[in-house]
């Protein structure tokens, strides 16, 4: 198979030597696989295709227990695991094929990470349209989970900016899938269950600099936080609030809002290093978290202390502070393997959304979490904007809260089941890319287009070639 034809106007075609393929051997190994939360390991055959042909062969030969594509393994739960079957590690297909530096689009392999795209695109004055809290996700994963970022209220989810992609389907064929088609909408947020995305054409965001201009403010409690977000979110392209879920009483839901936009060139101080090279993509990395962290490190005490410091450290109000992209969007990427700090037992991420008119449900849930004393230090609250058409796409207009909890917290399973009920009753839903424990009975109510999704899969993939632990667990 040759490179797919590029339909846009090619201005800068990356040659192979400017975009070296990552080192690593193709081949097959058998071993346990988990998501980023490091819970529920299952064993699978790991295949790392280096060409589209190898990917097609792997899909054809994946056997009775099927296969699923996997990118950088940042889904928290079991979305990119396939017990007893094949897991296609797509990070071997990582070429940036073409960049339209005038029109602002990029055509790249699905295994390219957003980190790589930033390295390549920022010097040309472009940025990815949507980035989640980590840039170590692949383009394929970004479409499969239809990820969102701090700009969802303005820019929607990732798939909104995808013009088309090529999908390797169960019959071994490669289909070009354009926006507005049922297959596009089933695949955007479809958790990899419609096929393997091989390449994608993505529309980019123009930027003048590689820095962010950030406003920070504190909110004293949940009502204050919600009022601030509601009143002024529209002024910012990016907006998110870190929320202290361990705070109790009058301080329940106290938070730090960080909102901002890409800094324009004239916002950089004259004769500074940043001014001389405004589009340089700078990151910093701390040493990786060690593999042997005791299970109880993140307790109510330590997290409570952290949250107190984090809240106090934030300025009451600060305007227009310049921050690196990596500091503003991806603070955790600075610590490789940060997921290890939860110890061997791993952790659970929980993210839900309820409509703007169901702020009552959000308040109840925040109070319940605070009363249950969940030691969560990565909790964030955000307002989503308009939904995108992906059938299983998570974001809908409303309030979304994401939190992390060590999986070993006693009674956590039953507690989260209780939150699920509350979310479902409020017409909300939980995020599949983060899920590792939802009760399957609730899914149909949360995702009304699930019936269409199942019907399309039954037609496109009658033998059920594409399957994951998530799909088995939730009967997707």
């Amino acid at each position, binding site marked *: 198979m040759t490179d797919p034809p590029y339909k846009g106007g090619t201005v800068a075609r990356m040659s192979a030597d400017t975009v070296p393929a990552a080192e690593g051997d193709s081949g097959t190994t058998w071993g346990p696989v988990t998501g980023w939360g490091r819970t*529920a390991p299952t064993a*699978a055959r790991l295949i790392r295709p280096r060409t589209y042909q190898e990917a097609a062969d792997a899909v054809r030969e994946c056997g009775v227990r099927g296969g699923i594509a996997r990118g950088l393994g940042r889904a928290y739960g079991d979305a990119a695991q396939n017990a007893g*079957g094949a897991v296609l590690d797509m990070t071997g297909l990582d070429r940036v094929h073409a960049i339209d530096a005038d029109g602002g689009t990029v055509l790249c392999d699905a295994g390219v990470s957003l980190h790589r795209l930033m390295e390549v695109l920022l010097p040309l004055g472009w940025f990815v349209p949507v980035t989640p809290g980590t840039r170590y996700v692949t383009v394929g994963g970004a479409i499969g989970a239809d990820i969102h970022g701090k700009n969802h209220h303005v820019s929607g989810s990732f798939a909104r900016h995808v013009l088309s992609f090529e999908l390797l389907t169960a019959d071994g064929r490669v289909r070009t899938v354009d926006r507005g088609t049922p297959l596009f909408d089933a695949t955007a947020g479809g958790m990899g269950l419609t096929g393997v995305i091989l390449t994608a054409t993505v529309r980019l965001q123009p930027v003048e600099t590689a820095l962010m201009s950030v406003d920070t403010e504190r909110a004293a409690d949940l009502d204050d936080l919600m009022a601030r977000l509601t009143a002024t979110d529209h002024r910012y392209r990016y907006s998110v609030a870190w929320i202290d879920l361990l705070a109790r009483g009058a301080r329940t839901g106290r938070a730090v809002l960080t909102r901002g936009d890409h800094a324009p060139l004239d916002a950089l101080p004259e004769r500074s290093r940043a001014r001389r090279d405004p589009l340089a993509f700078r990151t910093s990395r701390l040493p990786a978290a060690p593999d042997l962290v005791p299970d109880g490190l993140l307790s109510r005490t330590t997290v409570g202390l952290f949250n107190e410091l984090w809240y106090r450290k934030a300025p009451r109000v600060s305007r227009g502070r310049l921050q690196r992209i990596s500091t503003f969007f991806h603070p955790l990427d600075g610590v490789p393997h940060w997921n290890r700090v939860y110890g061997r037992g791993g952790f659970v991420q929980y993210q839900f959304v309820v409509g703007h008119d169901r702020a009552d449900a959000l308040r109840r849930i925040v109070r319940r979490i605070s009363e249950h004393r969940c030691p969560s230090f990565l909790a964030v609250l955000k307002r989503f904007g308009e939904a995108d058409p992906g059938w299983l796409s998570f974001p809908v207009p409303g309030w979304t809260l994401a939190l992390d909890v060590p*999986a*070993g917290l006693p009674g956590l399973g039953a507690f989260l089941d209780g939150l699920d009920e509350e979310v479902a009753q409020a017409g909300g839903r939980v995020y599949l890319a983060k899920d590792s424990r939802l009760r*399957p009975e609730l899914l149909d109510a949360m995702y009304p287009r699930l019936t269409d999704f199942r019907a399309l899969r039954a037609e496109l993939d009658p033998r059920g070639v594409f399957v994951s632990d998530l799909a*088995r667990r939730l009967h997707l």
Partner: protein
Amino acid sequence: MKDAFGIPQSLLVLGGTSEIGLATARRLVARRTRTVWLAGRPSPALDRSARQLLDLGAEVRTVAFDALDPESHEAALGKVFAEGDIDMVLLAFGVLGDQAHDEREPLNAVRVAQTNYTGAVSAGLISARALQAQGHGSLVVLSSVAGERARRANFIYGSSKAGLDAFAQGLGDALHGTGVHVMVVRPGFVRSRMTEGMEEAPLATTPEAVATAIELGLRRRSETVWVPGALRVVMSALRHLPRGVFRRLPV
């Protein structure tokens, strides 16, 4: 599939009338388990067990299974695994026997050994192979503290559990890295039908407490679980006592 807390959605209980087996099933059904297979000799007691779990909202099916007939295990268990993934197999069958009586009737003693050890070897290996093929699942084996060091008072039962325990540990090591998790559960004296009328040993426990410990072990992916946990220390001390001293202990 198991969830992030190790709770299975489908469960196979080998020894479908075992009180510990049922207590565990009840607990797991209350959390997440939807499909329960009860394997045992067809009997009104097996049907009662099924009814009990059905009332809790589980989908329950029974399958004829006799630990003393290893030849039939392949077919019986094959049928279960052919119907879909099994996230957890609980090997719960076992008989206590009657030590004094069995010492005089070697054939009775052999039945204890064949049920607790030989039957478990066969069912354990068949289950392990099926779990390995599906790439995930837990095999939870009910051993006993009695197997940790054989006592004068019940060494026939104890030796059968010692064999089972060693078998399960080895199997767990063999399956390490295959996605299959083997957990050996060593309860102390459990108040149940099996021990009715017997004098209670110290640190006695209940089927419900064993079920709780199993749920915790699943979440932690433990390889060995003592019930109650203090038995780990007690048995570790007893294990190192010289024979002459151990013999004289009133246990």
